[in-house]
């Protein structure tokens, strides 16, 4: 009975023929490797995002006034709303991560070379669109991070020469962040970019079918334009197997693992936020992006000022152009990573850079700890046995927000150096100069400290050294005179 229905449907839809040319297409047996599972993994994450996104859109309200309330409703009142939010959040983290691994694998396996240039290029566009989804998705979680993140996006966009202000108005849907801004990003996140993604994924998959999946690269086997097609046909003839059911096993296993991973993370860690209410008058906030943009966050904090506009506007264009041009710069030749040291070193350099920047971004040492001046007490050992003048200096150190950037006893800001051993590094003259004139990342306090306050402060800081270490000595003064010779 069922087989009759199946035959009836197939007679009209020709599904079995379609299946044979898509899921059942021939792949080299060597392509049934664990390294090849990341493409389907990324696609799975995208499908999860679509399904969970639709579920969230049943409840979420993309209005500047109500978005936050609807998010809280999803978290605390909608049955399993927290779980759907968590799935969508972790799904996005997994998707960006697996996409990065997929791209790295394709690069290291030379699969961008002839004749798969368009597959690589469409993949690069997919990378940009996915990052676009990540950025617009963060804005959907409309809290303080999202509100100020919009301002940051606008400020970066505003640095474009000539049309900067116009682009800002286009991005924000007006002169300033308002209700329409959120709607604009909602439309991008739900309609425009997913539509483009679906179209491009279809193209990407079609190219995989028309040009075949890359055979596992062997060191010594070189790609040549005039011989590649025949060589690939020969490989398929010799060791070709239908993708379904012969080579799909590892993809299925990895997909299962990813799915379980997303569910486990969602169930254990739960959703992210929403954090503070997106009320601009709540200025006691430290905005930060999700992990996939922490590297930009760190880079913008650490770059010297003169490089910034160039790096913000020119470097991405150059980088993307380089990515797009890659298949033409390295069109033929070796595919195996073992014979391509430049490729391997580039990947290592990229991962090291991104990894360092992302890990710095997680704790943002450049950010002053805004409550440390009143919340981090002077460690007890630094007030014991001090003279009254030195104790007044300790008070000045706390009161003038020095602890926001400097730590004592492990608590306080990390913007400037820890002051625990400052007396071993700077003499009293150097301390006075540094406090009054500032320098580097430190502002000048000269106008905001009276001379007695400076004296007290420096006197206190001169007591900050381990007992067994000598103080910094001013070699220009003769030995045996002055307070530093204690």
């Amino acid at each position, binding site marked *: 009975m069922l087989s009759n229905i199946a035959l009836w449907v197939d007679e009209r839809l020709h599904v079995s023929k379609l299946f044979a040319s898509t899921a059942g297409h021939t792949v080299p047996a060597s392509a049934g490797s664990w390294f090849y599972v990341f493409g389907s993994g990324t696609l799975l994450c995208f499908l999860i995002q679509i399904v969970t996104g639709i579920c969230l859109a049943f409840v979420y309200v993309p209005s500047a006034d109500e978005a936050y309330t609807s998010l809280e409703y999803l978290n605390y009142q909608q049955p399993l709303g927290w779980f759907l939010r968590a799935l969508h959040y972790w799904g996005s983290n997994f998707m960006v991560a697996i996409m990065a691994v997929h791209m790295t694998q394709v690069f290291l396996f030379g699969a961008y070379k002839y004749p798969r240039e368009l597959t690589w290029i469409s993949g690069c566009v997919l990378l940009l669109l996915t990052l676009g989804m990540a950025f617009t998705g963060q804005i959907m979680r409309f809290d303080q991070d999202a509100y100020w993140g919009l301002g940051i996006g606008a*400020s970066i966009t505003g640095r474009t020469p000539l049309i900067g202000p116009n682009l800002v108005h286009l991005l924000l849907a007006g*002169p*300033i962040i308002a209700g329409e801004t959120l709607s604009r990003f909602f439309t991008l996140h739900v309609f425009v970019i997913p539509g483009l993604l679906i179209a491009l994924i279809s193209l990407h998959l079609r190219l995989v079918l028309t040009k075949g999946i890359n055979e596992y690269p062997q060191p010594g086997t070189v790609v040549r334009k005039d011989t590649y097609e025949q060589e690939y046909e020969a490989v398929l003839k010799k060791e070709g197997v239908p993708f379904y059911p012969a080579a799909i096993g590892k993809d299925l296993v990895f997909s299962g693992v990813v799915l379980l991973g997303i569910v486990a993370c969602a169930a254990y860690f739960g959703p992210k936020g929403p954090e503070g209410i997106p009320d601009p008058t709540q200025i006691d906030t430290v905005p930060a992006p999700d992990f996939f943009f922490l590297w930009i966050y760190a880079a*913008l904090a650490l770059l010297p000022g003169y490089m910034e506009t160039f790096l913000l506007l020119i470097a991405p264009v150059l980088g993307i152009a380089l990515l797009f041009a890659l298949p033409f710069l390295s069109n033929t030749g070796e595919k195996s990573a073992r014979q391509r040291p430049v490729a391997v070193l580039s990947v290592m350099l990229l991962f090291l850079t991104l990894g360092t920047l992302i890990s710095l971004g997680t704790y943002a040492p450049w950010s002053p700890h*805004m409550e440390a001046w009143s919340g981090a007490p002077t460690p007890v050992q630094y007030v014991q046995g001090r003279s009254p003048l030195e104790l007044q200096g300790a008070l000045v150190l706390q009161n003038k*927000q020095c602890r926001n950037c400097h730590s004592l006893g492990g608590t306080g800001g990390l913007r400037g150096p820890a002051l625990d051993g400052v007396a071993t590094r700077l003499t009293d003259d150097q301390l006075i100069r540094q406090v009054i004139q500032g320098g580097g990342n430190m*502002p000048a306090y000269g106008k905001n400290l009276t001379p007695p306050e400076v004296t007290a402060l420096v006197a206190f800081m001169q007591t900050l050294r381990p007992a067994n270490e000598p103080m910094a000595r001013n070699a220009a003064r003769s030995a045996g005179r002055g307070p530093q010779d204690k």
Partner: protein
Amino acid sequence: MKDITPFVGLNPQQVSPAGVSRRGFLFTAGVALNAIAATLLAIPVIGYVFSSFRRREPYGAWIALGAVAHFPEQQTRLATYRNPYTRPWDGKTADIPCWVRRIAGEQFQVFAINCTHLGCPVRWFQESRLFMCPCHGGVFYEDGSHASGPPPRGLYEYAYKIEQGQLWIQGGRLPTLSEPL
């Protein structure tokens, strides 16, 4: 010579080679009509989508921040105002803060909340008389000038006026480096 046979069938003139036929006329007329209709549709749609690209006038409405007496001399206080270009569904996002520094008498400086580096909200500290930005560690002095960190210039300042004992500022736009207040 690449094989273009698949594309040949698209040209109706080649279907009936004996001059202009009804088919050919209908095809050309159809294309032309649709081209006109598409243009008439596309222009307003593009105008709608990119309406905010064309900044129509310099945005700046005069907004009251409160009585001058509310701002003590030699102090910097946070004031808030409602965005004059608000939409009905803005809610709390239309409340914009700013820092008001009264120097003496009717001499003021009103700073935008946005750091000049990338727009994060700066915080004022009375004791050290510094504005500190949480995002990338930018610091500004009491008069708004740049003290340290990545910001390329001092704080953005609103144009202000005192009328009938009230402090007014000209605002309503997000300040950026290319379009400061």
